[in-house]
């Protein structure tokens, strides 16, 4: 078994299992922490409030765009770029088709890959520069924030290096960095990719029933 076989075989399945089980365990842990029934008489539907909050907090609202434009632009650049790469990069589509399920969409062309990668890198770097330079985020940040950022950055960087598929070693490096990211993911703040729904929905349900979803 070559190193590539190992990282695309056993190690991939280990990383995937840790990722999936870890995410489920963490989400279950939150949901099973229990919540008392709200006995107040609602003014409006809490379910509508929850759904509204999940959508609403994807966009700046309440007159806050000007104050949060940096995060808004860099956040969207990074996340849109990252998800475009994750789901539409040609090697990813091929890998998913081979190891998991047949995706019903084609891979994106090279020029789209370049744009997506540039957006993702620009967004991630802008967010990290902010984390390092703004007194507020500098104070809030801990090791988890830095490790999560660097693992993501490495996965993206090695992915770009491996794009040409000219060297097996680069593909191995990319797989290793992605697997490290997947194993780290459930234990870290990267889980916000899932927990954002719970937090937004909780707030939306609580305040939606009062008549205003903040």
């Amino acid at each position, binding site marked *: 078994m070559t190193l590539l076989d190992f990282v695309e075989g056993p190690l991939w399945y280990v990383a995937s299992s840790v990722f999936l089980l870890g995410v489920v*365990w*963490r989400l*279950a*842990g*939150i*949901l*099973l*922490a*229990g*919540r*008392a029934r*709200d*006995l*107040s*008489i609602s*003014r409006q539907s809490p379910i509508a409030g929850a759904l509204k*909050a*999940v959508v*609403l*907090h*994807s966009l*700046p*609202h*309440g*007159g*806050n765009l000007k*104050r*949060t434009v940096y*995060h808004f632009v860099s*956040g969207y650049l990074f996340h849109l770029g990252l998800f475009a790469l994750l789901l539409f990069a040609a090697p990813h589509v091929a890998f998913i088709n081979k190891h998991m399920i047949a995706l019903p969409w084609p891979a994106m062309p090279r020029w789209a890959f370049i744009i997506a990668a540039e957006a993702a890198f620009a967004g991630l770097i802008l967010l990290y520069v902010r*984390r390092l330079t*703004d*007194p*507020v*985020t*500098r*104070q*809030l*940040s*801990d090791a988890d*924030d830095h490790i999560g950022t660097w693992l993501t950055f490495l996965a993206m960087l090695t992915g770009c290096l491996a794009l040409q598929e000219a060297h097996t070693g680069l593909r191995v490096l990319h797989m290793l960095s992605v697997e490290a990211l997947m194993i780290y993911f*459930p*234990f870290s*703040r990267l889980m*916000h990719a899932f*927990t*954002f729904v*719970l*937090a*937004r*929905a*909780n*707030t*939306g349900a*609580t*305040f939606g029933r*009062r*008549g*205003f979803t*903040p």
Partner: protein
Amino acid sequence: MTNEVSSVAQARPRPIDVQAAVEKLNALTGAHVASYLDACVHCGQCAQACHFHEVTRDPRHVPAMKLAPITKVYRRHKAPFAGLRRTLGLAPELSRQDLEDWEELIFDSCTMCGRCTVVCPMGIDIASVVAVSRQAFVAAGLGPADLLQAADNARDRGSPLGVTKAVLADRIEWLADEFEIPIALDRPQADVLLLISSIELMKYPHSVSAMAKLLNHAGVDWTLSTTGYESTNFGVLAGKADVAKILISRITEAAESLGAKTVIVPECGHAFGVLRWSGANILGRPLPYEVRHITEFLARCKRDGRLRFKSVDTSVTYHDPCQISRRGGATQDARYLLDGVASDFREMTPTGNYNWCCGGGGGVQAIGRAADLRHDVFRIKMRQVEETGANTMVSACSNCRLTMDESKAALGWDKELASLVEILAEHLEEDAPQAPDPAR
């Protein structure tokens, strides 16, 4: 000698029961709080919405910082993988130093206004986590003495300002004589129980007579009760859940003994928020009456044609009490009441559900050592009002009013502050024909 004793007492370390705080935080961390603690990405955008950060630019005043003590306990004890973290030494226990360092952030510099929730990309409601944290800090023996005393006064004497049943009866008798307005006290079988806040009764008594005048004119069958009269709930604000329950129980007992179908909360934001949205949960059963803020109730009377008003001849702007508007859902009622009364009405920017807090919500008004910080926060409101060019700022919360009156005096500001019910009572068309009360 007294001074020496005092300084020795101050130098002595305070007894802090860290374990009690840990146990309280663990007990109060349900799915709701856990979802918040697991979602914060430390982006710091909440700083952009917090009035304390806005005026101090102190990075410690970023709302997300207030999550730190409970997050520490959660990660060590209750979070998924807590055992793994403990084994690897990655989850230190909450310390005495943490509690001391965070006391000011949890009490003095959070008005629980919820502005940070609006801006948070995760939608985290930090105010509700602060409310939980306050209970833990108090369990540990911490918390501002004056805020805690206010809660104890409410429990032991009937109100945070010491308005006992006897004081209530005296003040009501005086108000009824002074303003020549019938004010019912303990009238059996009344449809509506009106609460008062002791801030109104002791500092703004005209507010109480104004409510009486409006309710009488609208033909409402209402009364005050010596069994349950205080609307404010310093038990919630001071993190004393037992006191909070006693205060809700008193109101409920009063309403049940009268058979009142409706309880009206006067001009007090947090009193409305606590009774309307948390009262049943604190009591542990649904409230056997509907809860209405006075602006909601008067708006209904106006819609029914039972109240008509003359126009005010000055420019007016409206300060939204956070717990009535953003966190209470009754944003439009005050505006509906002012419509036609304030012919020159000017909105602040931002306003309504996105308003800036007065600086004294969440019990901060009662914390003496936070006064300078409150006054600094009020500068935001001053700037907002001046930008509108309005002469008078009206509000529907006596706690906001007291906070703003004190800051206005401290900063030498010259604009007028007014109560909504007082303006409405002054401009009531007393000769206008009345529609009957549809509820009777």
